[in-house]
Each structure stands twice: as structure tokens, then as C-alpha cells.
């Protein structure tokens, strides 16, 4: 690994991120929140300086070297950029009065589209801050680096490694031969869908500011809401609009592009992951509705809340149409199971992803079948195509580390004083980038009262979860660092 190249590239990317921070400054100024505006302005300028400094520190030779990025360098750049962006994005929160650990938690929760919050009192913050919270999720949803790959011609070649290191799910499909074109197509769709949701929400009676903030966090499968009661305060019409766009956010965007281009929906139903995704939503909703009706909820409301919460959790958005922490344990365990499913590969959703479950199930069946027919050739197939062994191995390793990380996180949080349900759901909701859990960290609660070390652990879990475990964990291998050089000879 060539450190100079990594630092140079992280600098380039962070500098671009700095430019983004001018936007919330503008919004804060629009609402006459001058202190916050100054904070954003300072953050933007500081980030530009930091990025420029790192870019220069990497040296002029790195620029050329960046075009021949190795896989591990790509992973380091992505992981490094994400952790640095989280720190940069935390500055405005510190400026607004949050402590360092809390601010980092909030900004990581934003960028990773988790939606877990440490805000106790929503009235203490201005609109600029809420806009920034939503905007970090929007950027993180489709992938900040994907956006930079789309706009930076220089990343045309090295961008491949970066794009796939950041992408969600075991997918390597490209819509176009060039990765830059692919990133552009995907971001364009993402922006169009967001605009469509803003319009739909305005039509359903939301204010412009709320519509923009919610649209950005819906498409990102993020779940931050400027309203402390999440979506519970809004009309059923608003909730239905949000629901539809959450379903889209949890779908493979590349698949949506192909359907939109082809103009026929049959491709949708041929997609095995999409079918499994819809199936999971349907099954969970059917389970939830009777559990909700036991408590006297009407059928219409039970269907709305059951479906909303199912979609919200499986897509790892984390919105609440009512306080599901008050639901029965039977209903809650369905939601907990959904946290471990996640959305589709190539979507904005987090979690292990539907396709990995499909693959794991087929892998297990395959091994069962092999005991009956030891000499049989039994490939694992998806959509009629054979899944390469390499992909299958990565899926298995991913699942192992995902569960392991979740368990370690939950253990630490509980050991540091949280109750069992809080600890388990906090860990599951952060590594899955869901957001709220149950009990103390429920949808109307917050993570602020957890032990500071717990908050750090959960912050790390969000980072590990968003970058899909392996990208981060590989950096903990000693040999990478032992073989690291400033620059190759």
C-alpha cells in the first residue's frame, strides 16, 4: 500500500466534501441563524484547507499513481474518507453546542444513513443544523464517493475500486462500460426521485422545509426527521407518500434504471432479489397486522402502521409512523428480525441485504444436497446465473463478521450499563444503519444517555456497517501496515 497515494486521494475527496458544506451555510443564513451559518462557513473553509493540504502532502507523483489504484488502497481511501468526513461533518454540531463524542455520533449517524440521534431537545437547534443532518444522509445514501466519481474525471480509472468499495451489497453490475457514467446515471435517478418526493410531500400538505428534509432522508433510507416525533405527527397521506419512496430507496437503483430505460416492468419480477424483498415485506406485514389489532387498532390503521414500520425497518430507514416502542413484544420481534434482513444490494439501504440471505439459503441447501450426491456439480445460482465461488465466500465471511460485530457491540453496550433490549437493539440498529431500536433507544427516545464508550462503539458499528464490514476490517490486518510504504519505488 502506498500511503502517499491514499492520503492524496483522501485529500481530493475531502476537499470536494468541503464544498458541500457551503450549502447548509446558505440555508442557515436564509433563516437568519447567523451563528450556525458562521460555523458552517468555517467548517467549509477549514475542510477545503485540510483537503488541499493532504492532496499536496501526497505529492505530485501520487496523482499519476492514483490511476493504478490497488484494491486495498481503494478500500483504505474509502474507509479513510468516510471517517474523516464524519469528523468534518461533526464540527457544525460542536459549534452548536454538542460534545465531541455526541457530535461524532450524530454526524456518523447522518453520513451512514443510520438515523440514530443523540439530540435530546430538538428545539435547541436551528433549521440549518436540521438541514445539514438531512443532507449528510442524502449524500451518504447513494454514496459520497460515487458522487465524486461521477463529477471528477480524474477518478475515471481509480474510481472503479473506490466505487465498488463503497457500493452496498455483493453487486458488480455496471449500467455502462464506464464507471463514471454509471455513477452519473445512478445519481441522476437519485436526484430525480428526491425531487419527485418533495413535490409529492408538498402535495400531501407538508411545509417546504420539512418536505425537503424528509425527501432527502427517505431516499437515503436514513430516517432523520426534523420532527422529534418522526412521522407520527403527520397525516396518513404523508405517511403513504413516504412509504412508497422508502420502498424505492430499498430497491436496487441500477434495476430501477434498467426498468425505466426498458419501459417494461417484467424485468422487475424476473429479479430474484426484488421478489424476495417484496416477499419479506409482505410476510412481515401479514404477521404484524393481527399483532397490532389485538390492542384495538382498526384494520386500516393496522395495515398502514404495519406496512410502514415493516418497510421502514427492512429498508433500514428508521422512520416511525407511531411509537413502535409501545407495541407488543410479538410485534417488536418481527421488526427486530427485519433489522437483520436489510434492503436490496445496490440500494441506499443498509443491513446484510436480501440477496445475501437468498445466497446463504441456497448455499445451505446446496451443502445439504451434496451429502446426498457427493459427486454432483452443484453451482449456486441467482437469476439463472452461476454465482462465483469468490462471491459466495465473501458473502459467508460478511455474514460471520456482521453477526460477530453485532454481538461484540451489544455486549459492550450492555456491560456499560444499558438494559438487555436497549443494548441488543442499539447494536443491531447501528450496524444495520437502521437508527432507532427499542426501549431507551426507541423511535421517540435517543442515544444520548448511553455510556460515552458505548457511543464510540456504536459510532464504529455504523461505519463498519455502511462500508459493509470487509472494507473496514481489512484495515485491521497488520500485514497491510507492515508492508505500507510512503510511495512505491
Amino acid at each position, binding site marked *: 500500500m502506498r500511503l502517499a497515494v491514499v492520503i492524496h486521494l483522501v485529500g481530493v475527496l475531502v476537499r470536494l466534501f468541503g464544498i458541500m458544506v457551503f450549502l447548509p451555510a446558505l440555508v442557515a443564513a436564509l433563516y437568519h441563524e447567523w451563528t450556525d451559518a458562521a460555523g458552517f462557513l468555517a467548517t467549509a473553509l477549514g475542510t477545503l484547507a485540510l483537503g488541499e493540504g493532504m492532496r499536496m502532502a501526497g505529492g505530485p507523483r501520487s496523482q499519476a499513481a492514483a490511476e493504478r489504484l490497488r484494491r486495498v488502497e481503494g478500500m483504505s481511501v474509502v474507509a479513510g474518507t468516510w471517517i474523516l468526513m464524519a469528523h468534518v461533518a461533526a464540527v457544525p454540531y460542536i459549534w452548536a453546542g454538542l460534545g465531541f463524542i455526541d457530535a461524532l455520533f450524530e454526524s456518523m449517524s447522518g453520513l451512514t444513513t443510520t438515523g440514530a440521534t443523540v439530540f435530546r431537545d430538538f428545539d435547541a437547534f436551528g433549521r440549518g443544523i436540521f438541514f445539514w443532518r438531512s443532507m449528510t444522509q442524502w449524500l451518504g445514501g447513494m454514496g459520497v464517493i460515487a458522487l465524486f466519481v461521477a463529477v471528477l474525471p480524474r477518478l475515471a480509472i481509480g474510481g472503479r475500486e473506490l466505487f465498488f468499495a463503497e457500493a452496498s451489497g455483493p453487486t458488480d453490475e455496471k449500467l455502462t462500460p464506464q464507471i463514471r457514467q454509471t455513477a452519473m446515471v445512478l445519481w441522476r435517478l437519485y436526484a430525480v426521485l428526491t425531487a419527485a418526493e418533495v413535490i409529492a410531500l408538498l402535495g400531501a400538505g407538508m411545509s417546504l422545509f420539512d418536505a425537503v428534509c424528509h425527501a432527502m432522508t427517505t431516499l437515503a433510507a436514513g430516517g432523520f426527521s426534523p420532527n422529534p416525533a418522526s412521522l407520527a405527527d403527520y397525516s396518513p397521506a404523508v405517511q403513504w407518500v413516504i412509504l412508497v419512496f422508502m420502498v424505492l430507496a430499498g430497491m436496487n437503483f441500477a434495476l430501477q434504471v434498467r426498468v425505466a430505460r426498458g419501459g417494461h416492468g417484467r424485468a422487475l419480477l424476473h429479479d430474484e432479489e426484488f421478489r424476495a424483498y417484496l416477499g419479506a415485506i409482505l410476510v412481515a406485514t401479514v404477521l404484524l397486522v393481527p399483532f397490532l389489532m389485538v390492542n384495538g387498532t382498526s384494520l386500516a390503521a393496522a395495515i398502514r402502521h404495519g406496512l410502514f414500520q415493516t418497510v421502514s425497518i427492512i429498508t433500514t430507514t428508521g422512520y416511525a409512523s407511531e411509537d413502535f416502542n409501545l407495541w407488543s413484544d410479538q410485534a417488536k420481534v418481527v421488526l427486530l428480525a427485519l433489522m437483520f434482513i436489510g434492503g436490496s444490494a445496490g440500494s441506499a439501504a443498509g443491513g446484510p441485504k436480501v440477496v445475501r440471505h437468498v445466497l446463504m439459503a441456497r448455499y445451505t441447501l446446496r451443502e445439504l444436497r451434496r451429502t446426498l*450426491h*457427493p*459427486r*454432483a*456439480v*452443484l*453451482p449456486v*445460482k441467482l437469476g*439463472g*446465473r*452461476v454465482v462465483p465461488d469468490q462471491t459466495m465466500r465473501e458473502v459467508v465471511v460478511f455474514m460471520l463478521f456482521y453477526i460477530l460485530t453485532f454481538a461484540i457491540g451489544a455486549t459492550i453496550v450492555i456491560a456499560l450499563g444499558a438494559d438487555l433490549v436497549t443494548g441488543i437493539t442499539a447494536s443491531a440498529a447501528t450496524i444495520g444503519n437502521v437508527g432507532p431500536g427499542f426501549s431507551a433507544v426507541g423511535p421517540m427516545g435517543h442515544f444520548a444517555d448511553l455510556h460515552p464508550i458505548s457511543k464510540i462503539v456504536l459510532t464504529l458499528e455504523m461505519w463498519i456497517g455502511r462500508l459493509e464490514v470487509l472494507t473496514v476490517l481489512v484495515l485491521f490486518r497488520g500485514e497491510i501496515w507492515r508492508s505500507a510504504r510512503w510511495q512505491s519505488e
Partner: protein
Amino acid sequence: MRIIIVGGGEVGFGLAQALSLRHEVIVIDQASEAADRFDKLDIEFIVGGGTTAETLRRAGIDRADIIIACTGLDEVNIVACGMAHQLGSPQTICFVSREDFLGLSEQREGLERFGIDRVVWPEAQLADDIERIVATPGAIDAEVFEQGAIRLVEYRLDSDSPLIEQTLAELRLPPGSLLVAVRRGDTFFIPRGDTRLMAGDKAIVMGTAAAMTEVQRRVTPAAGTGRQRVTIIGGGDVGLRLAERLDAMKGMELRIIEREQKRGEMLAARLRHALVLNGDGTDLGLLEAEDIGRSDVLVSVIDNDEKNLLASLLGRQLGVRRIITRVSKPANLRLFERVGVDVALSARGAAVASVLHQVEGGQASLLAVLEEGEGRILEVQVPPQHDGRTLRELDPPRDSIVGAILRPDKAIVPHGTDRLGSGDRLLVFCTRGAADQVRTFFSPRR
């Protein structure tokens, strides 16, 4: 006619042997070793590439009437035909073995751009034949005509068959069906009303689809309509094609044994339901472990006669009911059936027969070849001189029988009282020896 054959392999030799009796034949092959075999034939052998203009000119391409490209390489065959088409104007016949150049079998027109008049795809033909036989319980050969309206099935009559020990008249086959031929030992004849069927005979029955279902019930009352277990040994061109067809059928439990790991992975990727086993078809341990003996049908289509025979005999030992085996050397056909293979089929044999017929056939077209070429199904047009006659008045050549009358609206299996019209087409069954007479008989008389 001047006929150029590119490729001196098994097919080229078979064609040259048959065509050299009446035509001027030139064989082109890269390998001079191949020439030895052709020495005893009355032909010209040119050593050179069939895709080289110089060689083709040397073979007199500009005066040639037909060029047949039958090397083992599809690309060479296609290019040879293309070159020939540009250098002269012969009729071009191209052998292919892979689907790469055809896409779907229905899209053969695609090759017209290469100047190819006819594509012969022996492996596909063989796979189709085997598929039909597999799908017909108890049959050892099966053909369909007129999109399935008329079917032909060959049965082997065992000692417990309900058809034996009776005369044809006593049999009372269902209306719409006709016993067109019987094979008994080395003789092959068209039965009469007083012919008595015996155990060990092979009977060829032709009939309408409905009647054949009835015949089916009479001949193999035991064969249920439940699941069929089929085992294919060898996943080559024929094996894959056959497996793909059978894989798409309902109620089919398919196993395919392939020796090469890589090829096995490719098969498993292409097939949805079939179980692909990696191993040798002659590995008794594997056959026993996978319970191959319980298969209803075993199809052995390795490209090696000895291995096919061994695998088939092992299958017989293990108790497989029906065994279908591919034969490469036409000479082995009889041998295989003698040692216990139910159906022995030769891809190249059938292809050679169909090409020969095309070269010599004239008006009548050859629809099928049965019993290693002993029996043939010809399609002919009713000529003016026979218009209005009943079948009984027709008096066709010896060793031939009208199996079906095809009219635009329907296909019937006739009685003696059925009257022929000038627009009718006929399916005529005849022996090899009678084929020429049948063609003459049904040619319009000047």
C-alpha cells in the same frame, strides 16, 4: 454431377463412398494421411485447405454442382461454403456441430448471408431423435410428421407383449393406425393381413396422434404417466442439447454424468433442474451410488463407441429399462443392438443419408430413416395419373405402403377405400431397395 467434399473424416468418407458410384467426386482434406482410406474409391483426392481459393480452384469449383463441407470444424465449413459460393455457383451444404453460428435452430436463414444453401446439424438431429424416443414410453424409435398430426413409433415385441401370437387381422389395431413394417432378424418386410407377429420382432406403427395414444396403451399397458427418470451419460454437444430439451419437460427427473469438471460446471449452469454428476459413465461405483439402475431410460452419448457400449451394458446390468446409445461408426450399429442396446443411433449415419437423398432425391423428399437406413419415409405429391384412384386400385411398388394422406385441412391414415386427389401429399413407407421405384412411381408421367 461434379461434387466437391471438403473434409475426409467419417462423414466425408461415407458420402464419397455412396456418391462416387454415379458422380464425379473430389475430396479435399488437409491431412495427406486421410488419402489412404480413399484410395480404393474412384475419386480424386486433393491435399489442401478447403478455405483456400487456390485449392478450391484446383478442385474445379467453377464447374462444380455441389460442395459439401463436412470437416470437424464449424468455422472451416462455413468459410469453405462462403468461398465456394463466391468462386463458383455450386449448391452449398454445410455441416455444423455447435449452435454458436445458428443461434436458434429456427434461424438457419442467418447462414444464407454466408452463401450456405443447407445446414446439416447431425448432433441436433440426433438430440431431437433421442428426445422423441425418450418421450414415447416403450418405443425404440419415434418420428413425428405434419407438426405431430402423424406419428410413427417402432416397438420391440418381447415375449410378454400383448401383440404377439396373433395375425394382423386378429390384432384389430385402433382405427387411424397402421402396422407398416416388421423387422424379423435380418429380414425387413411389409406385413399382410395374415402375418403373425412373434416375440423378438420389431414392429413399426404409423398413425394419427389420437390413434397412437391408443396403440401406446395397448402395447405398453404398464408404462404410467408419472415421473420419468432419465440418465444421460456424456455432456457433449448431443448430451447438452438433449438435456436442455428434457430439462424443460414436466415430470422429468434428469441426471447427467460428465467426466470433465469444467464441462460439468457449464452444464450445471445451463440446466435448471437436472442433477449434474462429475464422473465417468463407466464407473460402476458412481452408477450404483446414484441408483442409476432405477432409471427408466439411460442415454449414452459419449463420443466414443467403446465407452458408450460399456456404459450401456453396465446400465442394462443394473436394471435400466430402456437403453439408447449413440454410435459413431455406422458399422457398429448392428453390433450394438445385438448385444442388448435397445436403440442404437448414429448421428452421422442419419446425416449422410439425408444429404445423399438431397443430392439424388428429385421430387420426393426423405422425411425419416428407420432401422439403420433399411426403412424410409418419403413424402410425395399425388401425380395426375393417380388422381381419383382409391388406395386399393393404386398398386404401388413392392415393399412400399402409403402410410398417410396429408391434406391442407387434415392428415389421415388411410383405408383401402380412401380416394386420392391431385392436391394430396402422401407419406410413403418403403424399404431401401424400393425407394427408387417409389420415386419413379409417383413422378408425373409425361
